[in-house]
């Protein structure tokens, strides 16, 4: 078999430095990390191999790899690394880089390479959103009314706005997801899955999305629980807002049917965010020891959004309509950039890429198993023929 010759690109490792891979050049390939990784298996041997691809700058190979998404950064690899090459952080950086690769707009690339650009865009979008909401509010309602006909920001209108934004996000994410599929599977000459395989593994998508079960395979359970709380809180909130906004915004009395779930979701969010922020400040574990600027922006946004949401809700219950309206505007003007920028271009995209990667990994595994066994059979046949000929 004539192997394909791939050109190495020594520049990529310099590029990845901007995505947070500061130490990957230190790796001398002892393989310790792959062997301790709870997620590595006979089909996906990583993180060492991914680090190698990165050192050598084999961009296409990295683009085609699912491995970075199979890593949940338990940090065992980094703890045991004899050279301080930070395999866990490298995988994290690769996820950032891949996110920017899947993203066809180039925005993601811009944000990861320059946190200042990201911050500026965030602020601009927030200001624009705030301006829009204020104009909208004043044009059709009164700042002194939260509920009723004169409501400053009536839930029905916001609901329509939400759906509009959701549509934009879905389109963006869908395109990026298709690109991810194409890079890793559809356009990958090494993998030729059958349609049946795709269908058979389909259950993985909801399963992984709701349970984040792969994460649980990392040695410690605490990070998984935090992550799950954050994820479920976020998703619950999303469901509440997308489908039950009128219930959420009704008031000022507490409607436990909606708000009960909302409180739980907020608690989950707040708990998750606080644990993450404290962890990153203290650098208490390998997976929080290194923070990319985008991580701080992301957590900061999330924290403010959560807090303003809670403040808005409390003020509303307390009957301070104007204050509640203002808080709501602040809340919304932060939610908009957060969703618009983080979901398709930033860390929230993991919400989609992770389950998708788990699904595709299942497809790969089955396909690889099939391909390997038929290759082995092929070899056997050739060997038999040779024997027969002899």
């Amino acid at each position, binding site marked *: 078999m004539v192997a*394909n*010759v*791939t*050109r190495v690109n020594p520049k990529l490792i310099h590029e990845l430095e901007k995505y947070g891979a500061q130490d990957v050049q230190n790796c001398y390939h002892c393989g310790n990390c792959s062997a301790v990784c709870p997620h590595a298996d006979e089909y996906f041997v990583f993180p060492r191999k991914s680090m*190698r691809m990165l050192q050598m700058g084999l961009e296409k190979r990295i683009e085609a790899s699912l491995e970075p998404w199979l890593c949940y950064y338990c940090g065992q690899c980094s703890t045991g690394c004899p050279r301080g090459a930070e395999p866990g952080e490298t995988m994290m950086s690769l996820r950032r880089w891949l996110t920017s690769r899947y993203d066809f707009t180039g925005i993601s690339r811009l944000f990861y390479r320059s946190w200042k650009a990201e911050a500026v865009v965030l602020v601009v979008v927030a200001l624009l959103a705030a301006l829009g909401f204020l104009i909208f509010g004043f044009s059709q309602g009164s700042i002194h009314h939260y509920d009723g006909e004169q409501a400053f920001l009536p839930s029905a209108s916001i609901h329509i706005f939400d759906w509009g934004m959701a549509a934009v996000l879905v389109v963006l994410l869908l395109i990026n997801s298709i690109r991810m599929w194409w890079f890793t599977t559809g356009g990958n000459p090494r993998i030729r899955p059958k349609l049946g395989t795709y269908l058979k593994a389909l259950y993985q998508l909801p399963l992984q999305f709701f349970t984040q079960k792969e994460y649980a395979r990392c040695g410690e359970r605490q990070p998984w629980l935090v992550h799950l709380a954050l994820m479920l809180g976020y998703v619950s909130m999303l469901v509440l807002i997308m489908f039950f906004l009128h219930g959420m915004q009704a008031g000022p009395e507490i409607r436990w049917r909606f708000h009960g779930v909302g409180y739980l979701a907020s608690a989950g969010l707040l708990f998750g965010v606080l644990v993450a922020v404290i962890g990153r400040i203290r650098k208490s574990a390998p997976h929080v020891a290194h923070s990319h600027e985008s991580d701080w922006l992301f957590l900061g946004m999330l924290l403010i959004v959560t807090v303003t949401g809670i403040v808005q809700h409390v003020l509303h219950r307390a009957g301070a309509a104007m204050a509640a309206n203002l808080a709501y505007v602040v809340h919304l003007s932060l939610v908009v950039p957060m969703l618009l920028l983080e979901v398709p271009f930033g860390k929230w995209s993991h919400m989609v890429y992770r389950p998708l990667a788990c699904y595709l990994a299942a497809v790969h595994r089955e396909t690889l198993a099939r391909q390997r066994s038929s290759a082995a059979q092929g070899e056997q046949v050739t060997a038999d023929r040779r024997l027969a000929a002899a």
Partner: protein
Amino acid sequence: MEKPRIGVFVCNCGTNISHIVDTEAVRAHAQAQPDVVVATSYRYMCSTPGQETIVKAIQEHQLNRVVVAACSPRMHEKTFRGACRHGGINPFLFEMANIREQCSWVHQDRLAATEKAKSLTTAAIHRVRHHRPLNSLSAEMCPTTLVLGGGIAGLTAALELADSSNDVVLVERTDALGGNLARVDLTAPHLDSARDLLTEKLTRIASNPRVTVLLRSELVALSGFVGNFTATIRGPGGNGAGPERQVRVGNVVVATGYQEFDAGRITHYGHGKLPNVVTSFEFEQMLRAGRIETRDGRLPQYAAIIHCVGSRNREFHPYCSRVCCMTALKYAHELKSANPACYVSDIYIDMHAFGKGCEEFYKATSEVKTLFLMFEKNEHPVIRRAGPGEDCDMLIEVNERLSGERIEIPADLVILMVGVEARSDAAEVARLVNISQDREGWFMESHPKLDPVATTTDGIYIAGTCAAPKDIPDSVAQARAAAARILARISKGRIEIDGVFAEVDEDRCSGCRICNELCPYSAIEFDEGKRRSHVIPAACKACGACVAACPSGAITGHHFTAEQIHAQIDGVLA
């Protein structure tokens, strides 16, 4: 002659011998031999109590012959001769039967091995009856030392000896001292100045009146023996026929160094054809000149370093050249230092960063983002010109082992880490000073572990890379070790000569002079007056060639007489 009273001592060597050979049976068999007064066995004859057993037995039983059946005489003959001396008998009235290396370790049949051990012991008993006491002679030790080679090893050895107030003659083939070190700018792993190191040595050599430096000179003949060599040195002159001078020296340090592997022998590296493929020494030249650039004067954007050029390869040299890995890392550092925008690839097999501070240096080289690429031993990367559309001059194709990919590496400058090999004239030097070379042409030490500086020829020492590849600290250490050995000998003033040599019985000598021509050491002189030959004991190495060849049987090879060997033959067949 007094009646032989033989003591036989059988060693178990822990279980090394006794697990196959029934040492008790051997002992009993020996005991039953005529003239054997006492036969004992012990766990370790070589240990202090073992040797004491021999000493005591000699005294208690008035032994006048000793046989030890144990390991190889190469291992412990000296030890047991010492024990005999302590016991009060001449050390040559002793014989060893090798029942370990040549019996218990090579056979598995207990019965057959025991029988063989009996035979060997019997042969030794037969032989030892015919042993004669031999006495060593002593000769003068000339305090002057000849040092061959003016590289770092030779310079160090010369200085070490001269600083202790001994005369040194330093012979260098080229027109300058310094050897290969003079071609180096900085040394790995600390990037210290090689120039300062050399300047220091050269200044000290120049200012030391004890050192006579002979440049453009070479040794053409060495006669004599330890303590009393006469070296013939040819000085500079037209067509290698310069004036010759003779120097009396007591010892010789061979520090002739190495030569670099000819990179042109590996055709797919294109050295000599591709303009920007250079050897490590050519690159060193570029570094010294401050011109790390391509032939046409551009700064290389991509540089590649290829390790093990000619080393660790079945086609060329099987061995590791030991210094290239660290030098390669040094180059990676230097490339990055001269031009931080340069991308450096380092293409290696195994990274030999074993010295003090070397692993740390390897890591530091990784930290500056050197791309390390690993290839398989016995495979070669292939270098070709890049196409016009490429942003580089050359592409290197190789199977990369750590990724499993077949890859191309861009390069504008390729540095070939050429290995070191024995000099083409090493065989000539070996012949002149009468030492051996191994399969690769390196000079052989008398024992690789316990005597890494001495050779099988007394008074000839080896230092530095002529013995095997090594780095500067190791060369310096070896050169000093050679000097230590010589200092110890010089300090005693005289040398002892072993009693084993050949002797001509002038009454039987017919004066045919066959032996004169035969002797490789010119140790046999012919007395024109008497028309008889005679042997110079101190020059004789006891090979026995003359003994076997003498048509009149007039030469006796002491300790290997026909009588003794006949007895031994009869013994093994008894």
